[in-house]
């Protein structure tokens, strides 16, 4: 029961009930705005009937040739609105934008290897494990949420092929752990 709309600049003033959750990072203004002014259609906000922010998604399109893809940068739901299918709706929107606006081959995302709940959730959405990455950082302040600085964080890179990738080549697993500096984009 959410109203989905574009993420607008003013939301930054009022997304606190979502962002005070420890797993949601609050970035500097430049971060949000660089997404809004480059990929405005990839950034969506879910609002409850009384205007409370329920969650949001930020994404982008990047890569070259057959690696041209949509990327889920952040998807987050406020604790009180979990388990009602909101993440599914937001992911579907991002996939629709990837397919219809940017015509990408696939959508990908990164998730901590240890976050089994999230990995299973993405599997339900049709994502599969493409590769695991060593020493990858999602953001400069990541360690703060856990109160410690971790030097080695393992991430799982998951992908879902879109109709443009007819043969589903983009999701064939790499089959080995790769280093962060081997990534095609950062």
């Amino acid at each position, binding site marked *: *029961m*959410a*109203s*989905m*709309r*574009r993420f*607008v*600049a*003013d939301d*930054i*003033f*009022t997304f*606190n*009930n979502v*962002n*005070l*959750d*420890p*797993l949601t990072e*609050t*970035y*500097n*203004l*430049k971060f949000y*705005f*660089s997404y*809004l*002014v*480059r990929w*405005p*259609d990839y950034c969506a906000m879910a609002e*409850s*009937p*009384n205007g*409370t922010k329920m969650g949001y998604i930020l994404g982008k399109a990047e890569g070259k040739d057959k690696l041209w893809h949509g990327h889920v940068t952040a998807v987050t739901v406020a*604790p*009180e*609105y*979990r*388990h*009602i*299918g909101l993440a599914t709706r937001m992911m579907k*929107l991002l996939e*629709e*934008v990837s397919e*219809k*606006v940017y015509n990408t081959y696939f959508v990908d995302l990164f998730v901590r290897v240890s976050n089994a*709940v999230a990995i299973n959730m993405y599997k339900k959405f049709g994502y599969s494990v493409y590769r695991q990455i060593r020493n990858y950082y999602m953001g400069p*302040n990541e360690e*703060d*949420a856990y109160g410690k600085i971790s030097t080695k964080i393992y991430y799982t890179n998951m992908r879902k092929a879109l109709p443009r990738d007819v043969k589903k080549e983009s999701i064939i697993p790499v089959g080995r752990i790769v280093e962060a500096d081997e990534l095609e984009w950062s």
Partner: protein
Amino acid sequence: MSDRAVNNIYDAIYNENYRLALTLSNKALKKFHNDPAINAMKSLALVKLEKYEEAEEIAKFVMESKPVEETILQALNLTLKDLQKYDEIVELFQNAFEADITNEEYANQYFMAITRINNYDLQKQTALKLNKLFSNSSSNKKGKYFCWAIMSLILQSRYQKDCPKALITKLAEQMILKAIEKDFIIDYEGLFMYLTILIDQERYKEALDILNGDLGSKCIKIETERNRLNIELNRKTKQWEQLIKVCQDIIENNDHDNFTCFYNIIDALFILIEENVLAIDYLNNETFINVYDWIKKIQEEELKNGISKIKRAPFIAEIELEKKIINMTGFTMDKHKNILIEYVKKFGDKYCCFEDLLPYLEILDSDELINDFKAELNKLIKSTDINVNDIQRNVNIEKINFYLGYKINNEEEMKQYVKKLISLYEETLPFGTKLEDTERQFGDDYLVIAASLLIDYYKLTDKTCYIYQAIAILEHGLEKSKFNFQFKIILMRLYSILGDAFRTTELSRSLNLRSIQFDTLSFLYTEGMDSLNIVQIPLHIYNLCLSIYKSNNIEVPDVITQAYKNETYSKIIEILDFYNKLNNSIQQVLFHQQIIRIQTLQAFNTVDKVNSYLSSVDDKYIDITEEYLSKCTDNRDYKVFAHWKNEKTTLEEKIRCRPLKNTLWIQLFGLIPKILKNIALKNIEKIKADNEKLTALLSKDNLISELLPSEIANGKIVNEFAKFVIEADQSKETKESGSCDAFNNIFEILKEKVDSLTSNNKLTNVTFNIIEQCTTMIEAINYIVLLVHYASNIAPNRKSRNLPWVINIQEKKSQFVNEIKKQIQIFYDYLKELNTLINSKKNTGIESIKEIFGSDEALIDNLMSNNKELLIKTFDQWQSSVSTSLENTLKETEIKMKLL
């Protein structure tokens, strides 16, 4: 110029080694005298080292040579950006562009520089110039520069005062039609401009036709975006029947959970009823019946999906519809109670069930209905053989019960209810043993209700023991749910009420607030910190929080230029509005004024030192004009607090340690340092003007809504001080007889302050209120020290020292000082006694807690069976924080006694 020298300096700057960059620049300048590239690099190094004046001087010197080299332009651009000299950046790139009008890069930089100075006319002209000069360039093949000109016109008509708006919008429309003809409008962003132009002219029907026509189809590829615009424009055109149809289509097209559409259908339906388009006898009205049946049909379709997959929107829609009927007819019936119960039955195991029902619980408008509802609701509580879903339902039911109101007749009943809630919470803990650290325990909300009840009792009785009990409960919950922000924000406020800066700060750090939250959430813990006489903690926090406004100034205009480059026009207005909203934030001025307040206190070791500090205070933060007040924005996020009670006063409002600072506070705390500054600078005309404002402010009858009595009293002392200065300078009567009322008036104000403070029951009620009164007392004494110093030097020159009026004033001053000293001594003794008492309780643990806070022993023992150490730590931290405040005030009082 030496490329090598410039490269070395550039490398040093790139590596953020600005000192090295400056050294290298100075060295290179000895060899390459006045070289503009090296000087440009030097100015950048200087600005990074915060040597702004020197940086500006060198930058201006380089600009005189009208540079065109890329290195120089970029170095100067960065320097001038940091100096916020945006007009100069325009000039810089204008020169470069005019020197080579074939250089598209400089032309772009020139346009981007203009976007920062809000000169929309120049912006439009420049965009058109670019369109003409670079009509065939690859970056302009989709008419980018032409679209920049259109966007400039849209901004001009919206933001530029005194411009012919209608004419400008018309011109924008002509240009967008031309852009469509040339196939420049191909996506959402281009269409956005066209729709904005039409909407700004209130031509909604045409906008709707465009949206649903070929252009709309071509530009909007995402269905939800088209739907959103469709609804918005149908509302604006007031085509209610059409709106109902559009929304029904959206819902039927596999979007049953779209509450916005249901809401719009129901809203449109009742607008039609109100407009008499439909018969008042709505039950026999065909459209009404159709909509009602249609909602029921969607519900039935959902029910086929199985209980775990049912969408909530069709069911809330029915409640919304019934609410509207009740509003229209005034009749509430049993069936309304039943649909609420049915909703809880279906969705009670979702956390958001309570939030969903919040707007509708008020439809139960009689005690009978509420009691029946509660009775049925409580039958849904499951207490044996329960699972996580049952717990969630039970929690929701408790929250609904709490919202509807409990009859609590006395303290004992309240305590019983609190104990019941704690026990319910404890029963949920075994279900959460496998939860991640970052997750909340299932029963956390029971504790929030318990704390809310205790807070209500604190408000009723003013007994601090309830605050301490609420703290104990929430700290206990925080042990299990380490990241529950609701616990933390309530706790921060409760510690603020106790005057404990240490634990408040610790909790605020654990929230990991950053960036925009410095503006929107810092008020949760900073409101009273400037009154505790603990210098370093608030200064650090305020300065850290101010970084968001610097980011706004430096980063956000850059982002707007990016929006032009990326042609994402829909974001330009949004981000401009965001920039202004943050730039005009009341919180920004509050931070500056709180810093000034603390630094004034800090500088007060000698009269010379404080006068020197006051003289250096920037008027920008203390000269609060009417213009500023009119555009001032309040971005503080009050809604982040749980508000689960059907009351006008929110939980956030109940747990403020002081009235919320707002425009009255910033006026007073602008005028106090401003008047003192001008007294130090002997600027009588400004003192007169500001003291008139202060007199007017102090005569307002709503002062108490934002200001503490102690702050108002201090305002009155400064007001009297300023009157004394003005009279001593101008009054014939003063000059003849030395008459002045200031001494008497100020003495009375101070005496009242001392009486009020020392009448407090010393230990049991030591809270923020006592500590702030001590801090404002020392501020009052400071102002008196300044007055005495001023009076001592009142003779215009050496010769006039023996004039009768001067002698008369000196005599009155001496009497005043004697009387004041007696009051200060009383204050000093009080402080000392209080501090000794608090220190004597150090490390006495749980016994002291019970003694000082009168807590319910059984409750605390029960709660703290495993958490005694936590409670003791909490007490020790409070003791340490309060003692630091009092000791600082004691030391300063000793200094002031010597200065008098």
